[in-house]
């Protein structure tokens, strides 16, 4: 589904990613772990198309098509979703209005009409029930005054609504207590199927207790220096990142 080929990226002429190779197939869950400053968040931002970063060389291919030249919204329309480490607040715009806009923009890109309000409500009801979420907060301004847990749940709710092919969870566990972590992880697990894929970016192993990866990659100094199965995460937790040399 997603192939990253020898990807080099930099920000303000500082090289951060120095040759990333990664292949994610449909139905798989990959985890990228690494110490602070290893380039984890840069990788997710570059896949999503954040213009702050320059891609120096290499390629990112989504379903046989290079997405490097695509604007972030086009990548989103193609099925890339990123759950933000720090979701932004948009005062005066309700979560419902926001997600409605997002869905209809995607449909427009696909040449479809706006989703009728009735179907939209149905979808909202269905997804919020699946994620066991209180629908009240959907009427509040997007992320404004939300707790850390609410913000992350809101991200997962949006993911459920947009039904992406590839979901990137960027440090989704940061700032979450264990209960919130379980709820969020459960949500992701419910949304996972053989047609989509999940890329979990995390510093700690604990999220991987709940979202069990098929593959774990260790990122250090802009390169993947070790890959393995889910047991690699446990080993890292026990021995620390210095263990991988």
């Amino acid at each position, binding site marked *: 589904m997603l192939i990253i080929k020898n990807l080099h990226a930099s920000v303000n002429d500082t090289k951060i990613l120095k040759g990333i190779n990664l292949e994610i197939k449909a139905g798989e869950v990959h985890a990228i772990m690494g110490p602070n400053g290893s380039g984890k968040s840069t990788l997710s931002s570059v896949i999503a198309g954040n213009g702050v970063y320059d891609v120096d060389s290499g390629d990112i291919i989504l379903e046989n098509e290079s997405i490097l030249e695509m604007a972030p919204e086009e990548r989103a329309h193609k099925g890339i979703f990123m759950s933000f480490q720090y*979701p*932004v607040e948009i005062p*005066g*715009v309700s979560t419902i209005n926001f997600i409605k*806009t*997002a869905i209809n923009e*995607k449909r427009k890109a696909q040449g479809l009409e706006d989703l009728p309000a009735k179907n939209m409500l149905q979808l909202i009801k269905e997804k919020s029930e699946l994620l066991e979420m209180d629908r009240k907060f959907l009427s509040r301004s997007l992320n404004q005054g939300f707790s850390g847990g609410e913000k992350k749940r809101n991200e997962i709710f949006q993911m459920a609504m947009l039904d992406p092919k590839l979901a990137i969870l960027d440090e989704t566990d940061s700032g979450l207590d264990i209960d919130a972590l379980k709820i969020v992880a459960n949500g992701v697990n419910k949304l996972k199927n053989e047609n989509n894929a999940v890329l979990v970016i995390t510093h700690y192993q604990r999220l991987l207790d709940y979202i069990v990866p098929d593959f774990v990659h260790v990122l250090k100094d802009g390169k993947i220096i070790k890959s393995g199965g889910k047991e690699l995460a446990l080993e890292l937790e026990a021995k620390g990142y210095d263990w991988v040399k």
Partner: protein
Amino acid sequence: MNKYTEDDLKKELETQEYEYGFYSELNAETFPKGLNEDIIRAISKKKEEPEWMTNWRLDAFKIWQEMEEPEWANVHYKKPDFQAISYYSAPKQKEQLKSLDDVDTELLAMYKKLGISVNEQKRMNNVAMDIVVDSVSVATTFKETLAKDGIIFMPISEAIQKHSDLVKKYLGTIVPKKDNFYAALNSAVFTDGSFCYIPKGVRCPMELSTYFRINEGGTGQFERTLLIADEGSYVSYLEGCTAPSRDENQLHAAVVELIALDDAEIKYSTVQNWYPGNAEGIGGVFNFVTKRALCEKNAKVSWTQVETGSAVTWKYPSCILKGDNSVGEFYSIAVTNNYQQADTGTKMIHLGKNTRSTIISKGVSAGKSQNSYRGLVQIGARADNARNFSQCDSLLMGDECGAHTFPYIECKNNTAQIEHEATTSKIGEDQLFYCNQRGIDTEKAIALIVNGFSKEVLNKLPMEFAVEARKLLEISLEGSVG
């Protein structure tokens, strides 16, 4: 110029060359440029006005000549040459029209371009409209329905003839001729506008609406609106403005006077979309407007405005809270882009006891524009327990624009409560990227963020107006982020 008669004017008109630009080729009748007593007499005669009105105008002209153009506002522009403006322009018309079918087809086409379908508006929205093109009303609708309740809604020129006493009683009482430079000019030369009277205890059954348009190149527009809500009555009034692209600066100096007698309520909503000039700051309308309301006992006046147009805006819809327990409200969104400049706000003058006022002002600046809020909250010595709440929020886009807030507070009564809140924020790259990532492109994202920012004000607009206003906000900010 001194011996100019109406016939001379007509002759000149026939020989005058018109330069037709992009604007519709209306068969207009335009006075020669310049301003003097004879022009004023000619305007008055053209309008078949009673003598008192002619004298009133001449008096205003005298006052205006003594005055100087104000310079205190935070706007910079080349001052208009008042002798280079034509003070009268009327679409030629054979008779008063009863149906829209009789209206100039080009006019109708122009409305269509602006997205104003008069027929549809009439039928669907139950809106009575007094359409003003340049300076003269060409069609007035729903008059009969309104007449059943004794409501008078007509061009002010007609009201001067038909309801001379009412006009004479109230005209210039809220905004006196000598109030300010532009008000004095307006008093001397206004050619049209609306007059509205709601009788005692009547709740106006529909929203009253006027669409203003500037059309003829080089003609200024000097609209005069006078709205009287008699005791215990209610009216919601909509004023919407659009103007076509023009290269030279056009002057617009309107005066709006609202009178809310005991227990009356007036909602006055404006969507202002005059031509703002091009992306380089060339052209655009100068909008110098004086709007003021008087509230008697228990009366309430709400001003809601969405300001997206004009090269230069100078406008402070105000409330004089004279009566005890009267309420004044001001809800405003001012959007400036490119080289636009806006200095706008309100004055809340608390004179009566237990008077209350609310000010919510939202400024959005983009491009190289400058957006200023200027407001005065004045509490008089007798205004026991007066209360004011003001909130001024600014949203900036990019780093070349400016937002300024000039709140003035004068309080002479120590039982008053005055609150002022202000925030300034910027549309962040992170907000835009977040929206992009969800599939929302930058332009749409800005529209979404600005709409969210302006929500408190948009919610105060009547439904169909709010939809139009939202669209306008989006259009105004198109291309504001590269």
